[in-house]
């Protein structure tokens, strides 16, 4: 367990740096269709393809599905936002 989620938060300079720094953190990914995916960002690439864990799909703010690992094709991504909520955390 080496996870310190807060590391590198203040030193991001470019969007790419930001994306690198948020791996392993809980995020909200909004697609162009308006659908939200919340989960742990596993990794992403230059196309903004995203691999997520513990993914929850929200349509119109309602939880529609839960998935384990999900791959999101980058062209659908509107934004990626870090979320304070820690998924699967008891407290």
């Amino acid at each position, binding site marked *: 367990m080496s996870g310190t989620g807060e590391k590198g938060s203040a030193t991001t300079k470019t969007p790419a740096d930001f994306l690198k720094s948020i791996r392993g953190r809980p995020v909200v990914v909004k697609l162009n269709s308006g659908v939200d995916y919340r989960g742990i960002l596993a990794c992403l690439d230059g196309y903004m393809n995203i*691999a997520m864990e513990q993914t929850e799909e929200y349509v119109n703010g309602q939880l529609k599905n839960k998935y384990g690992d999900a791959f999101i094709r980058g062209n659908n991504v509107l934004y990626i936002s870090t979320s304070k909520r820690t998924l699967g955390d008891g407290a």
Partner: protein
Amino acid sequence: MASEEESAVKEPLDLIRLSLDERIYVKLRSDRELRGKLHAYDQHLNMILGDVEEIVTTVEIDDETYEEIVRTTRRTVPFLFVRGDGVILAMIGMFFSVRLEDAGCMSHVIPKALKDGLRDALAYGPIKNLV
């Protein structure tokens, strides 16, 4: 931080690679969903799927009551080439990550035995609302 190098997933497409010869769920544009065995894929996410079930969801508005009528149409296709640009999302191994978290493992290092053991369960498609 060596854990990242050890992990089987360094980039998102590795997640797809891990799903070769597994049944996966694919969400496409225009409310289409596919479930099938992934035979091949490329960097565009063009895919060859086998033994595919396609589910098309349509929403109609009732003229009088303005109620939404949701209809799903299903068909099966033995083999399907999917053009990558239609793909929104691909889902794999719904089961694994849950179990692995319970075990406190790094979620992407999937024990082979566990993977084999659960393959049959997964072969029947995504298990919704598992948790």
